[in-house]
């Protein structure tokens, strides 16, 4: 499933992602497109609390794609966000 929240600012990218996760069919992943940098912190935080792992990829200047996948077992939101922080390159 794809969710385009470009143009939205906090808290809406996160709220609409949580909403979409509720409607996501089992075994499917959710792709979220955002152009709001603070959402790179809020979306992974909420997603990991719901058992989703998140990959972040910079698409172009000021635009990122987040891929959310269901994982086995509980996730530690702090560790998840820290890992994304390590990977995300704001300098592109």
């Amino acid at each position, binding site marked *: 499933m794809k969710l385009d929240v*470009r*143009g*939205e*600012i*906090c*808290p*809406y990218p*996160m*709220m*609409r992602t949580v*909403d979409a996760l509720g409607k996501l069919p089992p075994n499917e992943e959710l792709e979220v497109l955002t*152009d*709001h*940098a*603070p959402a*790179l*912190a*809020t979306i992974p*935080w909420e997603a990991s609390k719901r058992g989703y792992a998140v990959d972040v990829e910079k698409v*172009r*200047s*000021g*635009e990122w794609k987040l891929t959310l996948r269901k994982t086995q077992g509980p996730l530690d*939101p*702090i560790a998840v*966000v*820290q890992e*994304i*922080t*390590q990977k*995300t*390159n*704001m*300098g*592109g």
Partner: protein
Amino acid sequence: MSVSAHIGPLGARVVPAALGLATLMARMVPDPSMGELAPKIHVWPLGANVLIGGLLFGVGMVVAGGCISGTLWRIGEGYVGSLVALGGILLGLEGAALSWNWWWENSMSRAPLIWLPHSLGHMGAWISVMAALAVLYLLTYWWEARRAGPEVRFPGQPQPPLVTFEDRRLALWNRLFVQAWPASAAAVALSLLNVTAFAFDHPLGVTGELSGWSSRAFGLLGLYPGRLEGLDQFSGCNLVDAPPGLLTNTFMLDVGLVFGAFAASVMASEFKIRVPRQLLRYLQSAMGGTLMGYGSGIALGCTIGAFFSAIPSLGLNGWLFGLGLLGGAFVGSQIIRRLA
């Protein structure tokens, strides 16, 4: 949602930390005798207008998605919604100018003015404010750990070993202009900037200049608020009836914020024209902006002039405005949750 999301990725703790340093440094600026206020400090009476202005501002900044300085730098980063919010701010400032004399008569002219050095001495005032900020710092720390997510930093690509001069030069460039600054470094820079601004002219503030723009724009439509009573008695981000000019500190500060944010986002390759797709978001920006403009107009400043610059000025008005902000932000966050 957390307040920190509204003031950027640095985290809410920057605010007390920066206020603390500005307070510390303000002691180095020569002060006149104890009998009167130091010139150009942001201290004014504790009128209901300060609290109500803070409340309206708090609601507005959450609904619009950023405070007034936030609106300016987001314009620089390409947020179209922030341009709409700026329109609202100018409208609200005009409303504040039109109703200012009522606020002056019924609130400001009767309210007590409390400058802490009068009653506690400079040292006593300084220690009290620093202690209060320390408590606030710990409270925010505790609140963030409990409610919000962890502080996120963007460290950029893993650094290669720094061997040559070129490696080091590039790393320094990246640290300064590409990656986000650590919260503590940004807080220190902001505080030093505010103290410098105070030493040379007056503390930082962005709304006085904007009120000049608003007054000029609405003057073209034939709307003149007339004489504003009492504003010559203190020096905050007072409403003015004309922009002071292009080569002034306030004009350069406001326009510089936009260009600075533009430059920073381009260097971090993060600039993009961001266009909201729902009509509701434009309405939110316009309404939130109007509330912020009106609130900052009657309270003599925004989160910068009436709060960030007011608390180190050692008056109580900055704290009263802050209390209003807190309440308003809470109400605002209840509103935006229902507007998904």
